[in-house]
């Protein structure tokens, strides 16, 4: 019971308190690049969440049973990036075969995910925080949900902002950054919600 509560707190903390995008600055490129419309932002979030959960799963095993067991930690970054790149490729092929509808929705976002630093950052934070297997999966999934939440929220704001009277030099990226800043301040209110 205690354990279940802890896992729930870990999830809340990953999604809200230490939100990957707004508090930890991970995954800023897609956050700014693919957030013009709510629907596309949601698809991007979905694809990222899927790959992040899979990555957490795969890198946990590689790290524990290969890198740490054989004392090859200096190959950590190399093996993680290979895992992420292959996983993205594999997921792309798999979805294409199994569900053409889903592929149509997510397909174009998948290649972008390889260089999404939220994925690599998440994979690297797992060994840094000494998470066990279950914690790693929850953390990976929570990181993806947090990313989706942030990108969908900013897309909603941007859809509104384009009707606003934004000064010429602030249009585009600057106003998006300012909106993100206000969101980040709001997200600070979640701190203290759960002490993990």
């Amino acid at each position, binding site marked *: 019971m205690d354990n279940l509560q802890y896992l729930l707190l870990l999830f809340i903390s990953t999604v809200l308190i230490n939100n990957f995008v*707004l*508090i*930890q*600055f*991970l*995954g*800023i*490129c897609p956050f*700014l*690049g693919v957030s013009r419309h709510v629907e596309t932002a949601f698809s991007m979030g979905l694809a990222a969440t899927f790959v992040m959960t899979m990555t957490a799963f795969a890198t946990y095993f590689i790290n524990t049973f290969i890198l740490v067991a054989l004392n090859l930690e*200096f*190959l*950590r*970054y*190399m093996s993680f*990036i290979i895992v992420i*790149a292959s996983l993205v490729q594999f997921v792309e092929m798999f979805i294409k075969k199994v569900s053409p509808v889903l592929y149509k929705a997510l397909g174009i976002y998948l290649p972008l995910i*390889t*260089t*999404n*630093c939220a*994925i*690599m*950052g998440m994979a*690297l*934070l797992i060994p*840094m925080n000494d998470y066990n297997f279950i914690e790693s999966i929850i953390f990976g999934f929570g990181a993806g949900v947090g990313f989706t939440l942030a990108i969908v929220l900013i897309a909603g704001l941007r859809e509104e902002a384009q009707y606003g009277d934004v*000064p*010429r*030099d*602030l249009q585009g*990226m*600057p*106003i*998006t*950054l*300012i909106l*993100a*800043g*206000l*969101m*980040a*301040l709001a*997200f*600070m209110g979640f701190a203290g919600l759960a002490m993990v």
Partner: protein
Amino acid sequence: MARYFAIFKNGLWNENPIFKLIIGLCPTLAVTNTVVNGFAMGMATGFVLISSEIVISLIKKFIPNDVRIPSFILIIVTFVTFTDYFLGAFFPEIADALALFIPLIVVNCLILGRQEAFASRNPTRRAIFDAVGMTVGFTWVLVVLSAIRELFGFGTLAGVDIFGAGYTNMIIMILPGGAFLTLGVLVGVLNLLDRKVGSDNG
């Protein structure tokens, strides 16, 4: 020589990675709470960028087109790991401050982007100028951003007290929200400058 200088100058303003190409923003926001951190991040990224541009421009003939990107990533990750261990061994304070964002240089789109756009199509000497120009362009924006944040957030510049003991720190500047706000306003100001004087700066 003038041609090389033009390549170098390109990264400073016209194709500045941060406010023109809009890439490499994660470290830009995350580690710019003090000038020292911002500068160190610029140098670490620059080292990886320069070394991989050199290596890739040298061996580009031997890399088959189909595995171009994976090969670039393997070369980049090698230099990133080197940087991580090197800083950990000889500059532990910097390594602690930048922490996660050193390994994340590997997914900085700036690095891979320059290999694809420049190093894989140009001779080594030109690639070096491109890499150095991009490094300086990336670093100066980081330093300006971190100077603003450190000055108002801590009342200091590179650790030197500026406003004296009576200054109340504007904590928002060091918080994540402050990073987004400052960069947003800074990019707006740079856009304005670019529009007003940009034509003769090219």
